[in-house]
């Protein structure tokens, strides 16, 4: 048990840390409502009014919505492709004994440690040959492949825990292999699918490196990449800059506040023993 003074000390240190983590975020949001002059003159004050002028500027004058749409499209497509193909492979590895089973599992796992950024030159050449440079589909394929090792790892681990009796009972009832997969295994796997999905969706949504190399046209840019365009254009208008940062952070922050438990479990999965 902690002595009262120790508990008080720990609580004080934790409160201080939380303040250090949240204060910059609060300043960012408050500054989004200020004019540049206000930010310069009174950086610590609340905004004079919660006017939406800066947000309106972003809405009218930038392609924020297009960037947001691209990020949604790319993230959703790559996660769908990754989960579908990764779960099928994990299912084969986890539920069927065949020659090479272990080797294929290890082949997928090897990808966990590989920094794919370093392979960006061959990726660039390969995607160019496929006509997928400056194409959102190119990003989707790279992201889906990049997420497969963790997906196969998480899904195989989970599918192995499902008791064999379920499967055998269904087989005796005459269910086909495909039916067992779709009707029994997939519904049971939902929690693991969520973990694998979040584990990869957040880094994909936030990624800047691959769009930087693979996307050039403004209409195909994702949100983090679009943000760099517009931070350059408005570099002297701090109110608009903070509004842009706030708007960009908003979607994921809201989902995180609603689903913090799943986010933390998803992002630390693999680093934390289950």
């Amino acid at each position, binding site marked *: 048990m902690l002595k009262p003074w120790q508990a008080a000390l720990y609580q004080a240190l*934790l409160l201080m840390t939380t303040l250090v983590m949240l204060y910059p975020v609060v300043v960012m949001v408050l500054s989004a409502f200020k004019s540049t002059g206000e930010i310069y003159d009174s950086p610590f004050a609340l905004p004079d009014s919660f006017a939406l002028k800066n947000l309106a500027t972003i809405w009218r004058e930038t392609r924020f919505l297009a960037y947001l749409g691209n990020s949604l499209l790319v993230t959703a497509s790559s996660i769908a492709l990754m989960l579908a193909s990764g779960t099928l492979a994990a299912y084969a590895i986890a539920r069927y004994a065949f020659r090479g089973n272990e080797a294929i599992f290890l082949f997928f796992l090897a990808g966990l440690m590989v920094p794919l950024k370093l392979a960006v030159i061959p990726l660039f050449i390969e995607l160019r040959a496929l006509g997928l440079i400056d194409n959102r589909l190119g990003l989707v394929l790279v992201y889906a492949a990049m997420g497969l090792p963790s997906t196969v790892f998480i899904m195989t681990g989970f599918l192995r825990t499902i008791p064999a009796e379920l499967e055998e009972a269904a087989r005796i009832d005459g269910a086909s292999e495909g039916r067992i997969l779709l009707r029994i295994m997939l519904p049971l796997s939902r929690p693991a699918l969520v973990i694998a999905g979040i584990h990869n969706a957040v880094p994909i949504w936030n990624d800047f490196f691959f769009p930087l190399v693979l996307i050039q046209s403004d209409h195909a840019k994702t949100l*983090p990449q679009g943000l760099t365009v517009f931070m350059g254009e408005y570099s002297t208008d701090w109110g608009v800059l903070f509004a842009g940062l706030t708007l960009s*952070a908003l979607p994921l922050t809201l989902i995180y506040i609603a689903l913090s438990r799943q986010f933390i479990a998803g992002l630390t999965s693999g680093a934390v023993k289950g």
Partner: protein
Amino acid sequence: MSPRLRRSLWIALLLTPALLLIVAFVTLPILSAFVYAFYKWQGLARVGFAGFDNFRLILFQPPFSTWTYNAFFHNVIVFVALMVVQNGTAFFLAWMLSKGLRLHRFHQVSLFLPVILSTVIIGFLWKLFLNPLFGLVNRTLIAIGLDSWAQPWLGQPSTALASLIVVNAWHWVGFPTLVYLAAMQRIPREILESAEIDGAGEWTRLRRIVWPLVAPATTIVVMLTFIGSFNWFELPYIMSGLEGPPFHSTDVLGLYFYRTAFGTVSAGLQDFGRGSALAVLIFLFILGISAWWVRLLRRREIDL
């Protein structure tokens, strides 16, 4: 069709999409980098076999080798500093969170909030905060009477890299904290309680019981920090720039690799040969050190 064949086909069907994807977009590109590094390149075309020339230039021929070692040295600093500042803080934060004090859930969620945000957002935000004239950091220092501490954090070689490291620690500290917290929560209460009955204080328990028992978490935290430090790119790119200014004081291998591969005004035309050679060297370095370490660190782990 025999049931045996049907079963084999079904298994192959399940495996094919994932194998195709990973071979095409992970395995093949990585193997290709090893091949490309031995060629001379002009733009996007291979123009001849180069032997070990690209490697020789990077490792032994100034100015290329000077840039390589300068960047590498900065990556080492980043790794060591993050181990101390970010992961050291994380260990103590996790210990305090593991006490289950009031608001501990709120503290956890707050600490982890920056982790979910893009490095682009974090980088721009702190670049504005570190602005010499109007930035929050200097304004705060002046407001509390520390005028003399206010300085152009990102504009001078003596503080630029350190500023980036602190921002990186702020961004990621929640991650190792929660990894450590999960490991600490697995320690059986009886062990800590009996140590307490035997008169071991907080510090002794932390050092003699908790630290050894969370060794598996430390292994993971060290590995992730190592890989992250030697792949560092987005934060220095956003906050400093592609050349690692001022005077290359924030240059790291990631920036140097990008400049070499895709070309800039100062680094000259893009060179896929030298770029690939650099990628291969970084890759082998990360893989070699990781493999050696995992063996070393695993030996001191205790399984609960």
